[in-house]
């Protein structure tokens, strides 16, 4: 009996310690896309600055990581740069998770080469051919005799999935693709490699002065061999659909978001948040996206 009492007291003491150590305010946990992680961190910091009661933690890891986190209820918001897969929708159903989706920014996925590469434009089909390993030397595309050096993301990245599905036509990447941990590493590799090509979100193209980083060249892309090529850096090309490689960037919540999460998403997708989205090199969402977001918040 004495032993039972001692252990019961120890357990109660431990519980009290744990509860005291627990954070007093609810932390919103955001996890997922590496394309979005920097942007959402900045959004969260600005939001917390304006709302001292708010607490938001933002982690990367890739779209798959964020989606898994939402399904396993280890995060409140999943950042993802691709649509959910059928398998993920089924897993969510099994675990009682009913995702609601919000478009918070639009990304023009840029095809970037080293500035010593003189080629300025290629076709959408040629981008796919490059990454499938069907074009081995730049001289097949223009006046530049240099072996193609491919850089990309790891397979848990939403950008990887988007490229594979949308640009490569669901074919596999070449085994020669050097898989980098993050988009920033792709940019750094291109700066060092004269034969390099990489795919990065437009937010990673600019330096702190808002100019395209020195040492990079952003390729203009045309839909057809005879068509006009457009740059991803011009918002009008994205909105009009003239630039062929663009995508919405999402956040997902489990069902109707709670008041604190809804307030954060409403702010992100509102005028203040969208100004930051544009400042960070992404494109603001369209009115149609905004209307759908507002509907999903209710």
């Amino acid at each position, binding site marked *: 009996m004495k032993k039972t009492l001692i252990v019961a007291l120890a357990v109660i003491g431990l519980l009290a310690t744990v509860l005291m150590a627990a954070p007093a305010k609810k932390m919103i946990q955001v996890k997922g896309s590496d394309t979005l992680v920097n942007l959402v961190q900045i959004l969260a910091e600005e939001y917390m600055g304006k709302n001292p009661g708010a607490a938001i933690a933002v982690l990367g890891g890739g779209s798959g990581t964020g989606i898994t986190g939402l399904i396993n209820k280890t995060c409140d918001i999943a950042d993802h740069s691709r649509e959910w897969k059928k398998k993920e929708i089924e897993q969510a159903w099994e675990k009682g*998770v009913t995702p609601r989706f919000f478009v918070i920014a639009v990304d023009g996925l840029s095809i970037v080469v080293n500035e010593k590469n003189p080629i300025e434009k290629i076709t959408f089909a040629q981008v796919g051919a490059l990454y499938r390993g069907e074009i081995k030397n730049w001289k097949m595309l223009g006046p530049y005799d240099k072996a193609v050096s491919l850089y990309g993301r790891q397979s848990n990245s939403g950008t990887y999935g988007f490229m594979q599905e949308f640009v490569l036509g669901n074919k596999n990447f070449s085994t020669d693709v050097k898989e980098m941990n993050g988009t920033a590493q792709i940019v750094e590799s291109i700066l060092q490699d004269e034969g390099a090509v990489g795919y990065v979100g437009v937010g990673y193209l600019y330096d702190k002065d808002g100019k395209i980083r020195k040492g990079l060249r952003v390729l203009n892309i045309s839909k057809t061999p005879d068509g006009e090529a457009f740059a991803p850096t011009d918002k009008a090309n994205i909105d009009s659909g003239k630039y062929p490689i663009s995508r919405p960037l999402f956040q997902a919540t489990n069902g109707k978001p709670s008041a604190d999460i809804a307030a954060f998403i409403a702010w992100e997708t509102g005028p203040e948040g969208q100004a930051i989205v544009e400042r960070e090199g992404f494109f603001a969402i369209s009115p149609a996206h905004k209307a759908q977001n507002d509907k999903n918040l209710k």
Partner: protein
Amino acid sequence: MGKRQKLILALVFATLVLPLASLLAQTTTPPTQTFNTTIYLDYRYNLSSAGPITLKPTDPTVAYLSNQFIFRRAYFTYENKISDNLKFRFRLDADNTANVTGVTLTGTPVTGTSLSKDDKLRPFIKHLFFEWSNFLIENQTLRVGMEETLTFNLSEARWGYRSVAKTLVDGYKDITGVDTNVSSADIGASLQGSATKYFRYGVQVVNGSGYSHLEADKFKKFSGQLQLIPVSGLSLVGYIDYSRQMPKASLPLVTAPAATSYKLDGFFEMVKNLVLGGEWYAYKNDLNQAGGVKYNVSGWSVFGRYALVQDKLNAFARYDSYIPNNQNRAKDLNLTIFGLDWAPLHSSMKLQPNIWIYSYKDGTQYKATATSNSDVAFNLTFFLSF
């Protein structure tokens, strides 16, 4: 070769070779490799001293393990995802169940040998398989090798505290001493998939001798599982397995013995931060006889866990009812487990204080000298994963 064998060979050939083209087409993505270690470490302390497990010896020269530190399990897992559709897993497990470790030579020159034993934590292979995703159809997975059995992986995932206790069926032998011929891993092949979000299936054929023993007869164990998810967060699962057994000389009338397990599970995950589960289990084996009378084994379990502070603090509880011999209900026992799961720094290191309460209908059925029908023990479990 008979017609039947030819037909089986043709089916195996068609099943494995026809989708080969799609697999080869998927081999171009560079590998993603992961390493992971998971460890369960306990500090155990008996809170009773008269039950069958915690009985204190009356002889002061006999050791009494009233408390101890023990590494219960250590896993090392290597996974290599070769492509979107092909993955390999190699998992070592380690426990310290008094393995025979070697031979001690005595005398010079050698005059004889004797077996040496100790309780060191030693590794053995638990998983060694390949996994072929989208096999034949989308969302269907084939596994071949030493792999998890279907028997309790869904309930294990919902209970979520293997670090504290195995689920009802997995831990049945440990708790009651009755072998129900189940194993968490075995050598064979399985096919699992989903037709729609409402319906999942799994079939498996394995040796039936588990991961600890080689195949000992020509018979295989066949398992099937159906999972219905009528509404999001509510699962109903039915499971059955069947295996023929070798006859026993002591039971000459049973010439073609068989063993069958039946299992029903229900999981409720519709309320945020709460997981509830229940399972019912029955095991029938023609060779389970006492005094010429066949007996069956059964049990049920309910459990729940609740996140008090997300990613930081959970509370969990479980109640098991065991009927290890339906012809001798004096052996019935119940087990209650409750505790906390606290991650003070990071989810890779958790403290899980928990209490186990055994309640026996008749404790002397388990230890003749027991003077109490209950055992109570406290564990401070350390869960480490890195």
